[in-house]
């Protein structure tokens, strides 16, 4: 309690340096939080898209029913397959008619049904990645009586790749922000320490241990981290409200709701922010008290 009080006194008497540290942490947290927010929402979006992925397996014409049943069973037994449904050429044409209500006359002129029989496959939950879907498609292509395999959203694989790259960049930048924030905290703590060098010398002469000298600085670091973290997250919340309103009024994202960071992420970021404050003080003090 004594150390906490001393930390608050120190913060009051070095307002400018402390405000600078808090702002630095807040900026780092805001940038890191913005990245996290972006990734969480893009992940949601991609998961929603992946849920809608269907693989169509087109069959040779006039395939006997017994062979078709065997093939359906074989496909259903594959790990990546969640559900297999047979869609006959007639059903497919019927669907097409329903989808092309306005251009129905075009289909009326057809003398024969050009569409093949097909299986519509929904992948299992475990096989929603672009790689798994690609692997499933090539397995299906090797099956006898299959003429073509088609899975829409092939672009998803490419998008997924870009997303992974973004994510790796995000982690890298997050790490850099963390290190930069730690060094900035360490440097502002160093400035405070230099301005109090004589005071620390006097404290040592009256019998203060290094632990006694360090403790308020640790509290100071934790307080700076907590305040900086809260400030950064509050700014992120304001930006989120603004961005979410824009997205909802737009049309590119469709039915996907933009959401804020989950509570666990907020707590983790706040924890990281306090760690940044503490670590900055710790590193600086370790060096300073050795030299002093």
């Amino acid at each position: 309690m004594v150390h906490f009080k001393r930390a608050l006194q120190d913060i009051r008497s070095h307002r400018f340096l402390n405000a600078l540290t808090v702002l630095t942490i807040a900026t780092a947290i805001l940038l890191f939080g913005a990245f996290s927010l972006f990734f969480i929402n893009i992940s949601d979006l991609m998961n929603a898209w992946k849920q809608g992925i269907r693989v169509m397996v087109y069959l040779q014409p006039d395939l006997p029913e017994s062979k078709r049943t065997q093939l359906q069973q074989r496909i259903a037994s594959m790990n990546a397959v969640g559900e297999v449904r047979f869609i006959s050429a007639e059903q497919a044409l019927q669907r097409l008619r329903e989808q092309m209500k306005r251009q129905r006359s075009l289909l009326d002129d057809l003398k024969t049904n050009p569409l093949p029989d097909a299986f519509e496959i929904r992948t299992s939950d475990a096989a929603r990645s672009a790689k798994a879907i690609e692997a499933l498609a090539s397995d299906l292509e090797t099956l006898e009586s299959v003429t073509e395999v088609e899975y829409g959203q092939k672009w998803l694989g490419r998008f997924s790749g870009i997303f992974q790259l973004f994510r790796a960049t995000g982690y890298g930048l997050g790490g850099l922000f963390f290190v930069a924030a730690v060094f900035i905290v360490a440097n502002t703590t160093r400035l405070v320490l230099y301005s109090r060098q004589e005071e620390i010398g006097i404290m040592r002469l009256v019998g203060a241990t290094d632990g006694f000298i360090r403790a308020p600085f640790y509290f100071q670091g934790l307080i700076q981290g907590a305040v900086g973290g809260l400030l950064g997250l509050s700014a992120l919340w304001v930006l989120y409200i603004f961005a979410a309103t824009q997205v909802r009024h737009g049309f590119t994202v469709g039915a996907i709701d933009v959401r804020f960071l989950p509570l666990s992420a907020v707590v983790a970021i706040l924890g990281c922010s306090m760690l940044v404050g503490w670590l900055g003080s710790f590193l600086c003090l370790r060096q300073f008290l050795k030299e002093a």
Partner: protein
Amino acid sequence: MSPDPGASEALIRLFHVHKRYAAKQALSDLTLEIRENEFVFITGPSGAGKTTLLKLLYLGETLSAGQVIIDGMNLARISRNRIPQLRRQFGIIFQDYKLIASKTVYENIALVLEAAGEKPRWLQKKVNSVLRAVGMEDRNASYPPSLSGGEQQRVAVARAIVGQPKIIVADEPTGSLDEESAGVIMTLLKKFHSTGGTLLVATHDMELIRRNDARVIHLDRGRLQPAPPL
């Protein structure tokens, strides 16, 4: 007051102590003992090594050679984490007071007890008690720069005695004070001595030495010399 061999055990022992700064030999082959509850003046001209000798006792400086033993603790072998424990046996008074300008009089004194882990309820009582003893209770919320030299030195004495140390080392405690303030400071220090404390005062003020009945250790160019006649 000369040391009585039959009296109490030596609290401070120095054996062949040398201290050398880069270009200067500050102390040479110093061997001496100071007993518990002794009142000692360390005197000599400027640069004689008075301040260096005091600093060696509380490890404000490290030895170049020899041994210093304080209450059984050999300072040549003391570990870094036991230095605060050693320093709590001392009350240190400096000519330039060394009070923390950003802390109030009360906080400057309380710091000693906080560093020693004193419980808050005792802390307040003890600080107020020493403030009364040095006549500064009405200035407890003042900051050192707003006090006169004499007042600052009284606060420094309060800070030195509040932790109930065994030894007080005072480096020219009256050097920059007027006669009246110097008298007040010496009265406070002698009161500490009369309650069983060991008092070491470095001074070149022969008048001060003449007025007090105390053992005199005379240094010249870092060596022990016979005390000059008073």
